[in-house]
């Protein structure tokens, strides 16, 4: 069995394993309920195509903790510190999306280590949906 490397020890230039997932209406609906956003664009087919995937779904599913290779031991957690995000195209319900992640920087600030990742979400047609750059730090119960 392949041994997973601790996420907080992954360095600049390394990538996390990509995630692929399909967004169904039921999947999207779970997120509409969670963020209390019931706009018809997320439920109805329009002249532009199937319903739009709620952006919050695509953001949380492109957090690096969703990567199949993400691993932290019990007692250590990744906490989101900052984010730069660009929306490029709406995602559509029924499509399959792939997320890729790459570590682009590691730095220390006020004694805490930050790891910076770039993430890209594309759909099954190769259409870019969102680009993100975000900084995570790691909390442990031993601090």
């Amino acid at each position, binding site marked *: 069995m392949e041994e997973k490397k601790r996420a907080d020890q992954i360095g600049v230039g390394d990538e996390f394993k990509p995630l692929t997932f399909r967004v169904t209406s039921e999947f999207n609906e779970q*997120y509409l309920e*969670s*963020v209390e956003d019931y706009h018809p664009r997320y439920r109805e087919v329009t002249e532009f195509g199937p319903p739009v995937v709620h952006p919050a779904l695509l953001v949380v599913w492109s957090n690096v*903790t969703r990567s199949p290779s993400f691993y932290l031991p019990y007692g250590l*957690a990744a906490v*989101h510190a*900052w984010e730069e995000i660009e*929306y490029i195209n709406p995602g559509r319900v029924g499509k399959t999306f792939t997320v890729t992640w790459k570590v682009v920087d590691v730095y220390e600030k006020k004694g805490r280590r930050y790891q910076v990742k770039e993430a890209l979400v594309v759909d099954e047609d190769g259409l870019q949906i969102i680009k993100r750059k975000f900084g995570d730090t790691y909390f442990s119960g031993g601090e």
Partner: protein
Amino acid sequence: MQNIDKDAQVGLELTGKLKTITDERVFAFSGGFPKGPDWPKKTIHTNLEFARASGLPKRTASGAMFEGYITELMINTFGEQWLRGGKMTLKFIAIVTPGDKLLPKAIIRSRQAENSGVRFALDVWCEKQGGEKVVIGTATGLVPNL
């Protein structure tokens, strides 16, 4: 629907919808999909023991959840087209826990005419009941020429 037009002025304040953080919503957001026998997946957002083991005092809502509230405000402000070119930079500065109520807000800081319309820059944030800000940042959006 677009809530501002090209004539919107610097200083205009925008307020989104009041959101209530509940256990059910946090589980739905951070518990995974589909809902199998082990749902919700144990994380700092869904499991108190897991959160405490990681040094956090309480279960916290995911920052992506209240980032989504600001995104909703931007889409309601600029229209669905904000999902084609809209940008945000955010800093998460306080934890949010079940029971909190959050209000997303924005204020126009600058406006710049471009060939394709007017591009606005805004300060954006979410504040808790009592006014404490939990996420702060900036966003840009375009109101296109008709």
